[in-house]
């Protein structure tokens, strides 16, 4: 595959089916370092599947994905897991925080998985929580904080390893507009400060407004809107 020049992550002719359902049908994608790209489209259009494929969570049936010059199809499961652990960050709509861990332990978790000591990991985690304005929630459990706070904790956790790509699947889907906007502001600011690329799945135009570029996914096909902010 010829990835667009300078792109950090690019995909071409992706195809993915779940039984009789075609989720992706020749979708394409590319993103540069520091860029924020929104994947838009109605429910069931295939945008989440595209995100999962790009992140190495799901293997496409056909097509090619290249990350930092390396074809992802050539990586085994352990290599893809290592990539997700060290190079990628994730924010989902809900259900991603471990309910029994405190917020700071949740944020520190990816670092600890990478072998960082607990103290060091929690210190870094608290720095990130401060940047996302949730440092006062450190000792609370996810069940004890509000949805917006929890989502900011999740963003902190996604960024704590300083990933090169942040994948955000409907990060504000469960929040009210005020909280949603605050989360997006903090998310994009933090990502830009570390030059991380952000792949943002959303169906809300006001969330997509935080992106540099929009790709619309419909019936498994993608269309790059080439919209510059």
């Amino acid at each position, binding site marked *: 595959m010829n990835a667009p020049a300078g792109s950090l992550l690019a995909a071409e002719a992706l195809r993915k089916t779940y039984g009789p359902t075609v989720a992706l049908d020749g979708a394409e994608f590319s993103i540069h370092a520091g860029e924020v790209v929104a994947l838009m489209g109605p429910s069931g259009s295939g945008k989440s599947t595209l995100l999962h494929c790009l992140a190495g969570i799901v293997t496409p049936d056909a097509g090619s994905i290249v990350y930092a010059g390396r074809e992802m199809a050539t990586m085994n499961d352990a290599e893809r897991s290592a990539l*997700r652990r060290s190079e990628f960050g994730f924010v989902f709509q809900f259900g991603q925080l471990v309910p029994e861990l405190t917020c700071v332990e949740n944020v520190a978790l990816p670092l*600890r998985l990478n072998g960082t000591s607990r103290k060091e990991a929690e210190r870094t985690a608290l720095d990130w929580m401060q940047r996302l304005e949730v440092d006062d929630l450190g000792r609370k459990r996810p069940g004890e904080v509000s949805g917006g706070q929890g989502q900011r904790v999740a963003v902190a956790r996604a960024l704590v390893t300083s990933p090169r790509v942040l994948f955000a699947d409907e990060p504000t889907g469960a929040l009210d507009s005020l909280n949603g906007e605050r989360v997006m502001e903090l998310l994009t600011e933090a990502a830009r400060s570390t030059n991380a690329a952000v792949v943002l799945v959303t169906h809300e135009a006001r969330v997509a407004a935080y992106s540099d570029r929009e790709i619309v996914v419909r019936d498994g096909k993608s269309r790059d809107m080439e919209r510059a902010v």
Partner: protein
Amino acid sequence: MNARQWSRDLAMGVRFAFAGGREGWFRATLTAIGVGLGVALLLLTTAIPNALAVRHQRDVARADYTYVFGHPMKAGEKTFVVADIDTPYRGADIRGRMIQREGAQAPVPPGLTKYPAPGEMAVSPALKRLLGSSDGTLLRARLPYRITATIAESGLTGSQELAYYAGSDNLAAHIDPPNVARIDHFGSPRSPDSESDPVLTLLVLVVFVILLMPVGVFVAAAVRFGGERRDRRLAALRLVGSDGWMVRRIAAGEAMAGALLGLVLGVGFFLIGRQLAGTAEVFGTSVFPSYLNPSPVLAALVAVLVPAAAVLVTLFTLRGVVIEPLGVVRTAKPARRRLWWRLLLPVAGLAALYPMIGQGRGGGNFNQYLVTGGVLLLLVGVTALLPWVVETVVGRLGEGAVAWQLAVRRLQLSSGTAARMVNGIAVAVAGAIALQMVFAGVEADYTKRTTNDLTRAQMSVQVPDGVQVPDVAKAMTATKGVLKVVSIADGQAGDKDKDPSQTASVSVGSCASLREIATLPSCHDGDAFALKGSDSETDSETAKLLTAAEKHGRTLYLNPAYVGDIHHGALSRWTVPTGLKQAESRKDPTGYERGGFLLTPGALPRGASTAVQGVVYLSIDSGVRDATEYVINTAVRIDPLMQPETLTSVERDGQFESIRTGLFVGAAAVLALIGASLLVSQLEQLRERKKLLSALVAFGTRRRTLSLSVLWQTAIPIGLGLLLAGVVGLTLGTVLLKMVGSTVRVDWPGVLAMTGFGAAVVLAVTLLSLPPLLRLMRPEGLRTE
């Protein structure tokens, strides 16, 4: 609040139990299967007393008491002759009888329609199958009779019992009670002994309580399957206007539906199990399906108590849950568990058992209610204490690797769930440890160490009348797997031909054989010896007889009547040789020390062989498979009434062994049930966390880390549960031993074995839950559309 509202809420709960599409059915089915398994086991337990009673009745009905009191019975219209020819085959016991009808009105054995003719036999269905299979080839050689009939159910105690009746026409000539006797009826003339050993009664009672207790715990756990999902649904109901009590009633209705379905399934499982029980044999015991009829009262109790318990358990568990309309249903931080009332239970149990301490077995009238109540309270104490122990310990556990941290945090947040999961195992292990201790403690009272020296011989054969000992010895020497044959014939010598005033034993054998019972100075055929050193009384009797013999020209008399043979042989005279050699007595392989005289065959007067009865000791090559079977076959070929005996170092009381067997069978069933319950709970919890597990894997968490975390989550509460089970088990065991008046001694191997069984069940469950765990950990689990 009126009944209508109640029934409406309960009905809504019932509807919810099966609503929710596949997910709802899955949850309801899980609960129903769990409750059903418990119900089936409860029904089986209620059927056991009946099964045992029927078995006992059948056994009594076919009894052929061959002990003859007073004068021997004469042949008549109702008489028949029966010989007990039970035989073991590859570890299984075969009930064998040879029968000869004498009078036209002689009763037919239960299960038969007529007497088998000579050379024919009637067999049980299981024996028929065995004889027809390749496994039964050696047995077929032992039972060469033609199979002409099958013993019906009324003549058997179990579907898998191996039994036969062989016909004969010359048994009357061999009457020698109790092995061969003439009788005129089957069945016991007296009602069976109703006096039971109080220690054994206590054991039966405790075995029942200990086995049923985990079933109760299991049923309670089963009605809570899918609890978290249910709580979310209840929160949604609160949102649309249900009050706190309404949702509790709805939850109770849901639990009741699962329990009722479980009841139906349980009856189904029981009926299937009842049929299957007819094809199985456990520890040598089998039953016919018709035996397993639950007592109607107990069955009705199960039918009422199980749904009631389901409702009560649900209401009890909802105590600690705040169901709010906005979905946060569980109190963020549950109230700290209190120790005092949890401790009260085992203390109350000990208090109930205390009055019976020291009563011992001397007429020990154990109060059944206090025993049952005390044991129950102690075991319920385990289920009450365990959540507190788990909460207290995990609350103090420190940081560690990620897997450890995830597990510890999870346990800290919901230690109750973890404790519930292992409650059943803990109760079962605590009970098993206690019983193991009691069994080990009182075992000495019910087992007897024999005097057999198994290094010298492993089998013995009593040679019947009319069979020559040398013939048996020769045949045995030629038998595959026999290493050494020692044959001795014993009789009595008297100073007169009739009514002797002085007698002494006479043992006849080759020099090699005699060396097995005495230390000989030198020995040649034709030698005779006077034995010394058995015990002083026997020695003096021998000396007196020798003195008496001097008066009659050194003549002694060997009379077959002295050894009980009333049919054969004639009186023989034996002249005691001058210069009789002395020999030192030594124990034979069965520990018996002979006195009297030793004679080599050449010293035995002609015709005196009928005055002695032979016994052959055999040393067996343990490397030869079926060596004992070859020996038995050789013996039966010589005389069908000859019954070789396998020598053992220990003899056990049959009833004691039955109870012990019952414990093992029951414990195996209960542990299997609890294992199934654990697996279901584990899978349910994993399903609840599917999304989270997928998210964790999505951001790169190693599967090993998550698997290890799941293992820790099981291992920590199990470790604590087994520890608590050990403490309670040892306490209960000590109390029970004190009650029966036995010395308290901890049977550590038994404790470790029982704990190991519990741990093995958990390990098996963890291993079985790994494949679904790995499947759930796929990042594809994030997909919801």
